């Protein structure tokens, strides 16, 4: 089959049009690599049949690791023997997806040697995805990767590859060092990352400010989102310059502040910082004039996940404000406390956000040893179904 000329009329359609074409990418590799060629062939079949031709992965991986490789098999192995086994590696990306050309070439060379030559830059979790490896290639490829300084990321019921926004690397709004925090946490939890031992996956994401450029609040069991406590820094000259240049400060800034805490008299922008909820909007619109305050740190939120199976969750506030200095001890203490409780009482395939809903946030906090604070909730309960402790402490509510 690999010999026959490969006809892909349906996929060829997708070489047209202005947007860069993944088909062209596959063909680039296919020119030299049989696995890539058969990927194309099988994909064309999927386009004809309107169905995936991949089967479930079995347990494949590298020795000593429980995660980092996603097993995959073709359901047309006779026709496409080269991709009969077609596993992916999740290679842990560097913080912030920063590279040098040299680093990239190293990865390309290794992947040319051991795999299909196809990648995802990057997977949704953040990894470098090396797409399509045979089982026999796994160990040698892994050896070459680690030799060159690269390691695998997570998969299965483990810590998943943490990721972070560009942060202090290039952003003026980073309220803490996202790159350092992401790297430190990744290194600290190598064991938890490589050896699944949780009820289900556990994702960390680090965003430098409430803009959340890494979608932490939507996709991570532990979302660490930068913020500040004190007053927004204002350069009044620059505000006036924006106004002069045509920005309608009233309509674009004042009226869109969610708490209505900004006023502008044409000369001076005044912010009632005690009402500000640190949403970033005014700063976003006037980057030269405004900046987050100086007393910076992060809000820790927990429990985000996709809908399977109880419904999607956004993370919810766990620690309203925390200082973020290396070695990030509080984050680690919190994460480990969570793993202890969830590890003991969590059900199989129950994300921590679901677990908390099941056992009750109040009870969970007691187990973790955190005080409940009203910042954790949108509003207090509306239903009267309170589980009172054995002994009611009356004066608790005086």
């Amino acid at each position, binding site marked *: 089959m690999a010999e026959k000329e490969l006809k892909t009329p349906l996929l060829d359609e997708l070489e047209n049009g202005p947007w860069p074409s993944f088909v062209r990418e596959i063909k680039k590799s296919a020119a030299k690599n049989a696995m890539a060629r058969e990927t194309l062939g099988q994909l064309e079949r999927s386009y004809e049949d309107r169905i995936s031709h991949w089967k479930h992965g079995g347990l494949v991986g590298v020795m000593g690791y429980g995660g980092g490789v996603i097993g995959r098999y073709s359901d047309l192995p006779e026709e496409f023997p080269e991709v009969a086994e077609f596993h992916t590696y999740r290679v842990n990306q560097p913080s912030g997806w920063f590279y040098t050309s040299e680093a990239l070439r190293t990865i390309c060379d290794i992947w040319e040697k051991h795999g299909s030559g196809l990648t995802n830059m990057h997977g949704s979790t953040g990894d470098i995805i090396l797409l399509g490896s045979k089982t026999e290639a796994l160990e040698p490829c892994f050896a070459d990767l680690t030799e060159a300084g690269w390691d695998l990321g997570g998969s299965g019921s483990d810590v998943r590859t943490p990721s972070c926004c560009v942060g202090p690397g290039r952003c003026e709004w980073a309220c803490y060092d996202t790159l350092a925090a992401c790297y430190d946490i990744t290194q600290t939890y190598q064991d938890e990352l490589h050896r699944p031992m949780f009820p289900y996956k556990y994702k960390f994401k680090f965003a430098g400010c*409430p803009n*959340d450029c890494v979608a932490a*609040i939507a996709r991570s069991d532990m979302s660490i*989102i930068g*913020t*500040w*406590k004190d007053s927004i820094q204002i350069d009044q000259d620059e505000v006036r310059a924006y106004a002069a240049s045509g920005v309608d400060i009233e309509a674009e800034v004042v009226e869109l502040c*969610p*708490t209505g805490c900004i006023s502008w008299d044409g000369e001076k922008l005044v912010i009632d*910082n*005690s*009402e*500000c*909820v*640190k*949403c970033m909007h005014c700063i976003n619109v006037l980057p030269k004039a405004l900046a987050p305050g100086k007393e910076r740190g992060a*809000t820790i*939120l927990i*429990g985000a996940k996709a809908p399977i199976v109880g419904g999607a*969750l*956004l*993370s*919810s*506030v766990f620690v*309203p*404000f925390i200082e973020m200095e290396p070695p990030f001890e509080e984050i680690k203490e919190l994460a480990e406390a969570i793993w202890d409780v969830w590890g003991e009482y969590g059900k199989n395939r129950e994300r921590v*956000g679901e677990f*908390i*809903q099941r056992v*009750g*946030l*109040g*009870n969970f*906090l*007691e187990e973790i040893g955190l005080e*409940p*604070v*009203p*910042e*954790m*909730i*949108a*509003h*207090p*309960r*509306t*239903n*009267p*179904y*309170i*589980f*009172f402790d054995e002994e*009611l402490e*009356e004066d*608790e*509510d*005086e």
Partner: protein
Amino acid sequence: MAVAQRKTDIGPPDYRQFLHPVIKKNYGKWKYHEIPEPGVMVHVAESGDRIYTVRAGTPRLLSIESIRLFADLADRYSGGYLRWTSRHNVEFLLDDPKNIEPLKKELNDHGYPIGGTGNSISSIVHTQGWVHCHSSASDASGVVKAVMDQLYERFTTMDLPAKLRVAYACCLNMCGAVHCSDIAILGVHTKPPTINHEDLPKMCEVPTLVSSCPTGAIRPATVDGKQSVEVEDEQCMYCGNCYTVCPAMQINNAESDGISIWVGGKVSNARTEPKFSKLAIPYLPNNPPRWPEVVDAVVNLVEVYAKHARKHERMGEWIERIGWPRFFELTGIPFTKYHIDDFKHAGETFKRSTHLKHTH
């Protein structure tokens, strides 16, 4: 067993026979109203006709002697026409403004205060309590009386930021609109039911009883050879639903019954959508005859609200503007794990953004 002559299914009397002639004439043709003073309203019709209303507070629980008194007052001042409001105030409907003052004086002399209009605290909607209900965690009329004694001036004046609706219910059945009130006072049981295994098999059907429990805390069990049930204490949140369906599940408990306070609900669609009340204070002790802890808690809420809310801002609208953290700060109410929802849709009440006011 002939039903013969006996009338049934006649329904209530036709309201039209009870309408004041001015109302009949201008029915559906009102133009505007004014509230010249607390408890007094004038509604002006397109025709130019006017109907004056004098509103008085009552304890809702009325002796027929008092109803007869109202009837007499109506005869003398409002042509015999009167009505009650949806919050059990009595309203006299006058066509002659000269009758307002003498009517007010008589009502006051008999102990019925004039007010409840505009931005006031009107009468507390409430329930039966120990006067009639079997499942009440506290009395109703007594708590209401104790609270209103302290809020009296809020009834007879109109200088709150907006209307402030207080409601009371004596158990989680919440007979009223406690679940949507600016301030709700709610009797709560805080211990699982005591089971009378003697009576249970005689009085109740076990399957119905088992299925009545929203948390599945009740399980069939054989006790002393009889078919009965047992309650998994950990799972019980004392709703009393089992007691409603089975008298042998005694939920009342003199030691542990008490009162909780809820805030920020509303019903009207004015400005913001209707809202549920939210938990402010999970538990206060049952302290008849004057429930001082409850009275203090309510007065504190009213005063903090009165001081901080903006004009036209209902309790819940004010709290949403300032945020719950500040609400707890300003009122001095401690925040506890009980405030965090852990019932069915609990997760919906978690704060799922970084919109926080970090100020302390």
